């Protein structure tokens, strides 16, 4: 990992503190930190992360600061973001 720069952002994934350069997407920030999966499929529980990378496939859903079903490949990372494994698991709507 490159050394800490003034433009680096601090965020967390499932409670684990991580760092990524400003300008990263949420997906980019996770992958850069070695996280490749942040969602499981509803029926078979297969691991999912970034796939198309351009907002088309909706494979990369993640929770950002409590907001569900955000596309990680489109969302720009912000300082202090709390990222969590997607809760759009098929357990909703109120679960």
């Amino acid at each position, binding site marked *: 990992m490159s050394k800490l720069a003034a433009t680096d952002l601090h965020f967390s994934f499932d409670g684990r503190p991580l760092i990524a350069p400003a300008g990263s997407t949420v997906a980019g920030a996770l992958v850069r930190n070695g996280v490749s999966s942040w969602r499981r499929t*509803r*029926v078979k529980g297969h691991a999912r992360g970034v796939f198309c990378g351009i907002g088309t496939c*909706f494979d990369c859903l993640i929770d950002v600061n409590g907001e*569900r*079903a955000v596309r990680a490949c489109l969302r720009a990372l912000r300082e202090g973001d709390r990222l969590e494994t997607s809760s*759009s698991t098929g*357990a*909703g709507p109120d679960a």
Partner: protein
Amino acid sequence: MADDELPERAEVVVIGAGIIGCAVAALLQAEGLEVCVVDQVGPAAGSSSAGEGNLLVSDKLPGLDLELARASLALWRDLADELAGGFEYEPKGGLVVAPDEAALSQLVALAEAQRAEGAVLSVVAGSELAALEPNLSREVAGGVFYEEDAQVQPMLAVDALVRALRGRGGRLVGGVTVRGATRAHDGRIARLSTSAGDIGVGRAVVNAAGAWAGEVATLLGGYVPVTPRRGHVLVTEPVAPFTPHKVYESGYVAAIHEDARGYRTSAVVEATPSGTMLLGSSREFVGFSRTVNSAVRASIAARSIRLFPALASVRLLRTYVGFRPATPDRLPVLGEDVQVPGLLHATGHEGAGVGLAPASARAVLALLGGRDPGFALDPFSPARFAPARQ
């Protein structure tokens, strides 16, 4: 011969690899005809991948409309067995709900007329709705439950039909745009010219080009009045199914038959096996515009939440639009062109092409001299529309 090469000729050439073209082709090939389907893109590239997969009796008016739909839904049941499934066929029944007493009495009147023609249904009082649909708003006045309504995943259904077609020795070639025709002395189409060269026609050409069928007919010297009627579908995040049946507002049926300017929306709520929910519906004539209308989207969302308040906490992922192939009288066109012998139209199914696909295939088979389809064909002939030019 490679699957992606246009053959020299075929007995029957089907234009369009949507649900209609593929259902027609799979059946004709099974009946011993030699079929080639061509599509400018490939299987399910048009409206068949831009709608929903409801197989409905409930929204059909008594008479021709209902007779065709009931015949087709029975054929879907057979197809689910014959093709060994794989396309999420769910005979789960449909619940049509009325927001108020006035709408309810209209709905019940329609239901009684449909029942008189054989539709299997029961009227559900407001107080009994919760037993069928626990998450439905208590504000709803009442409804009608239609046992025959079912659902498929249209893209998977197209895929299953294409596999059946190819398994029987039939052909489907994508990336082939039909541009025109060479006619024989008797007026029949001898050859089709396409972006991939010519293809000879043995017996017939089937125009199954969906919302583009009007343009294709014109290219071939014929006429069919089909225009695109746009619809929006909202897609939610995956949720655990909380709507056991398909549920829609009774105003949906009137919307089909209305000719209003602007747009008209009514809530149609469908859970899918993948967990996402599909929320419709809208109708508007805006050509082939693909720009999502945010007012339409908001209206569909609000109407859906009014039926199922729990939807308010479900996230929307995206919205897509599709084009229903609409005729002036909202009935499909299944018959030979008035001016071009051997050009058979199988199109104009508006918002019911998936449901009506197997019956449409039977109609085309009968037009080619095959067995009786079990329903009256004449009323669906393109002869009912005055040709634009003679």
